[in-house]
């Protein structure tokens, strides 16, 4: 997959994961140009509808990047993120969206390399046309 289309949406939380993204930027670490990060305060604040809408509008994949276990800024956001991920994955399965197109992972604060690697690996596993 190359170029800016089809888009891959990466939701990052405002804390650990976004810090990883910023560090990747400061360090000039490359990741695919079709990756569009969207910062939210906490992954637990997302809703299945927001993720499904990305697929509705043609996203090839959606990756949720939050805080490592036990490091959630709000304490319970990780648990909520896991619940909404499972719920969304089940709905995506019903809608025929391959499981490789939706991911949940975490990045520690300041880990630019981990951010770039995780985003790159997720994107490489997607098929070229945005469908599975």
């Amino acid at each position, binding site marked *: 997959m190359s170029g800016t289309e089809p888009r891959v949406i990466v939701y990052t939380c405002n804390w650990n994961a976004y810090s990883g993204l910023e560090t990747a930027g400061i360090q000039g670490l490359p990741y695919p140009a079709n990756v569009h990060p969207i910062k939210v305060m906490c992954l637990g604040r997302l809703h299945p509808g927001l993720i*499904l809408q990305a697929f509705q509008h043609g996203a090839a994949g959606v990756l949720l990047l939050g805080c490592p276990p036990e490091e959630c800024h709000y304490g319970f956001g990780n648990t909520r993120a896991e619940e909404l991920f499972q719920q969304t994955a089940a709905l995506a399965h019903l809608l025929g969206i391959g499981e490789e197109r939706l991911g949940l992972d975490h990045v520690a604060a300041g880990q630019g390399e981990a951010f770039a690697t995780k985003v790159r690996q997720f994107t490489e596993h997607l098929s070229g046309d945005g469908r599975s």
Partner: protein
Amino acid sequence: MVEETITGAGNGLLESDQLWACLTCGRCTEVCPSDVRFLGFIRDVRTLARESGRQGRCSHGATIQTWMRMMADPGLDQNRLDWLNDEAATGRHLRGLRTAKASDTIYFVGCLPHYEVLFSKIGAQAVEIAQSAVKVLNHLGIEPIVLADERCCGHDLLWEGELDTFRRLAALNAERLRATGAQRIVTTCPECARTLKLDYPQHVGDLGMEVVHISHLIAENELGIQDRGARKVTYHDPCRLARHMDIREEPRQVLSALGSEVVEMQHSRARALCCGTSAWTHCGATAKRLQVDRLREAKETGAETLVTSCAKCQIHFKCALDDPRVADELNIEIKDLVTLVAEAIG
């Protein structure tokens, strides 16, 4: 609203929040002395509002509307039949369900598998309704077709004024339903029944087959149930069934056939109260109030079970009971009619 529209003073209606607050339950039409057909009016005005870029406030983060819109993609390759073999989800009595590639009957499932996922936390029995329906049909000697590429019927989008997406869904379903060569569609969802029976002919032509809600089909047949456990129940009439389609006695006949004593709430049949929300839009304090009022009516009957025949009504009541302040006072078992029948068959 109607008067303002007729007199030309209703220019603000399209921007009005009230436009989306209507439950489209049809209760006003039942009692209107001037024969105002408010349902058609509100639907048409909402279509105008949507055409000019306005919309209601979607509940559940627009998750439900989004999957409906996704299903309008003809290329969608869904995995929507896992529930047929999902024995872990429900009891032993729902194993060994039989469907067929060719049959005179189609069971139209609707969004039940999706509701199961979204509302599992409040104990929605959505997939159990679908499994029970196939079990009951099997009991009546029917092995139905269940379509792997069925789409949402489009009911909610139609009533929210999103006519173009509704028509795309309807066209996809009509093509697939006609291709089966079946003569009859059975639904467990009153909204699917209404939409396929009354709205599809207007938008995508006659399907060439009968559309029946499963309560109607069961009422017409002898269930042959020997072990009839006595149960005192009250029945909540879903708006689409009781007022839009005049199906009020059949579900009660089915309950009587199960040996249940049916006790009526203060408002029942054509005067029944709505479960509080329609088309997954505009849920809020008013919806909750309506749900609590209805649950209070159910509780006052002394019934041990509140029976519905609409998955959405069940979800809305269970959501209200998810609030401990409501549950402490009004807790009551809530079951779908078809799941009760499947349990009685054993």
